[in-house]
């Protein structure tokens, strides 16, 4: 793309409409980082409001905030720490799924790492509930497996 063309699109904003009907603005260069959005822009044109059925007004502003920082090259470890500081595990999960839907790779990877950090010392039961997966081991099978790797359970709070 020619330098002139990119400087004119960088100041252009795109309108995004969430699944619950709210509209948010985002700079075109930031929208480019979200491949799903870019594909919709390519199909529908950049003048109309882009519908995002699976993303809601709770998450989208946060995602836009992240990419606003990204296009100015200001994403630092401190910014990322601050970004997730006040989010609980469920809120991070929702953002993570939204980032996946939007094909926003950088945010998606960052949130994957953050969820992993949150789950690192959690109990097996907590992780089951978090991902909504069922246990299909019999009690005997499970206790045998736990015994085999008892060392990996040290320091973990089981009831959490």
């Amino acid at each position: 793309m020619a330098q002139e063309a990119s400087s004119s699109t960088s100041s252009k904003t795109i309108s995004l409409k969430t699944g619950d009907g709210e509209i948010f603005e985002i700079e075109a260069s930031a929208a480019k980082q979200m491949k799903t959005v870019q594909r919709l822009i390519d199909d529908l044109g950049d003048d109309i409001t882009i519908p995002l059925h699976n993303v809601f007004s709770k998450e989208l502003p946060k995602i836009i905030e992240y990419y606003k920082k990204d296009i100015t090259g200001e994403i630092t470890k401190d910014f990322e720490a601050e970004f997730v500081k006040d989010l609980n595990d469920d809120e991070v999960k929702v953002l993570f799924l939204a980032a996946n839907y939007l094909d926003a790779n950088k945010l998606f990877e960052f949130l994957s790492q953050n969820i992993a950090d949150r789950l690192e010392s959690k109990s097996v039961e907590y992780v089951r509930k978090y991902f909504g997966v069922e246990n299909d081991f019999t009690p005997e099978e499970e206790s045998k497996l736990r015994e085999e790797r008892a060392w990996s359970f040290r320091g973990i709070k089981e009831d959490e």
Partner: protein
Amino acid sequence: MLREFIPDELITEVLSFLPVKSLMRLKCLNKSWKTLISDPAFIKLHLKRSARNKHLALFSRIQQTSYNFRVAPFRLHCLLENTSGTITVPYFPINKDRVSLNVVGSCNGLFCLVGYYHTPTYINYKKILFYLWNPATRTLSNKIKFYCENCFKWRVAFGYDNSTETYKIVVFNPESYEVSVFNFGGNNIWKNIQSFPVVLLPLDRVLASHGYRDVYAHVNDSLNWLVIREESQFVIISLDLSSETYRQLLPPQGFDKVSLVLPTLAMLMDSLCFCHDFNGTNFIIWQMKEFGVQESWIQFLKISYQDLPIVYNVCSRLPLFPLCLSENGDTLVLAWDRGKQAILYNTAEKTGYTDNCKWYGSKEYVESLVSTC
């Protein structure tokens, strides 16, 4: 809690960022997770993520006469931040066969351990024992035996061949130049390969006399040894692990002075490095930017001994060994005094400091789930 369905591929993504200890625990979560975490493709993905967090493994013996030793893997950036205070050492016992073990090398989270065995009944009958050990998953392979005469003389090395995805143990006899290779996970037998190119190896003996054994550099799919030819010329013998053939490389052209301190090879940032003393005042590291290309040697770092927090006496002839470089290139970790001390050198500020723990060896290490069976 929000019961939102998360597809398997996304779960895999998150899991690939978890440390090994958590993943070992999560094998108890359900059957498909147990299968996933043991799956070679997942192990590969996890290794890729893990490789971004460099660790340094430091070894120390429990007691002088003990057959057990412990390994403390440190996240490199933690070692950099933790400049004072003692480092607690987790204890990983290795207790098999009552043989004194040493570390040959480390690759993808596996350590290759070696022990020299002398049976009490058959005095002349000797063998070398190897184990592959993953301290993160706490698993040890079955012992791998190599029978030979005068087994203490044999040199050992450990590497990984990307083309066949196998771990290889290489042993060679510096007198007869015989070389044998064991493909771990292959047909599990020792295979003789082409002999080591006939060159003199007094270098090796000098190093051995100072307590350094088995000094080699594992760069990509090759194992590299520094040898000395007639007319005191240094040459690098490089064994390609996939073709199992040798080539000879030359050190950088700027290097021609033989100093009291022997030069060594190292692996930094996936490149072969040649390191030597200069004038008794500096330590120079050259990097071969493009492996095998003579013209691609560049001088990477020049460290003044005065900037190091040790009293460096070239007359002691002990070389410094670069172990690894931090991601951002700011910090270089060097081993000194047979690996007993780790020195952290800041390349930007040109200052160094050391932790004062007594270790007997150190190697670059990456945490992984790689299997030992």
